């Protein structure tokens, strides 16, 4: 059975800290891994990763995929209170192309 496991489940840090969120997966036919940020309601797209070893970066956020070890990390540097959210990892795995499997999420709380 396909699995997407995120760790930690919950993380509390102070502003300015750097955090690393983990997502490991076991799927039959990997196509892509996506990171989303979920604040109050809808998940918002952060990154889509398809190739190993290529870092994607957006401001203070960056992410990388390791297809050999079957995991991805999401890094947030110089955290701010506005980074507080649940970060979701999702994996697309054909032949169920349109069935994205979500992990349970990591709840990040950034304290002032």
């Amino acid at each position, binding site marked *: 059975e396909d699995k997407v496991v995120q760790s930690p489940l919950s993380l509390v840090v102070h502003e300015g800290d750097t955090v690393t969120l983990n997502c490991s997966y076991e799927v039959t036919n990997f196509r892509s891994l996506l990171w989303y940020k979920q604040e109050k*309601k809808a998940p918002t797209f952060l990154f889509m990763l398809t190739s190993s070893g290529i870092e994607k970066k957006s401001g203070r956020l960056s992410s990388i995929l390791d297809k050999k070890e079957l995991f991805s990390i999401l890094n947030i540097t110089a955290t701010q209170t506005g980074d507080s959210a649940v970060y979701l990892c999702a994996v697309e795995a054909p032949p169920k192309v*349109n069935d*994205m499997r979500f992990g*349970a999420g990591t709840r990040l709380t950034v304290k002032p």
Partner: protein
Amino acid sequence: EPEVTQTPSHQVTQMGQEVILRCVPISNHLYFYWYRQILGQKVEFLVSFYNNEISEKSEIFDDQFSVERPDGSNFTLKIRSTKLEDSAMYFCASDVAGELFFGEGSRLTVL
């Protein structure tokens, strides 16, 4: 910026009642989805829709559920006879190049 819009934002209904949740996907997107998230739990795939038909559905999406795109813009999720365990946030999403754009969600509470 184009966005996926959903209505209602919150609906409270009695068990056994029919519910229709509505979504307007982003206009040039071709794939549409429904996901649900039970409070405190993970986002779960329900169904995907392409070219006016269901392309995939999960085991959650049983005979009580149906989807329609009645007029080329709205995308609806119908639950025929709601159960208590249908209480959740229902997210509509549409897709371009693998990036899902989610609506704000419709919270369904079944009493």
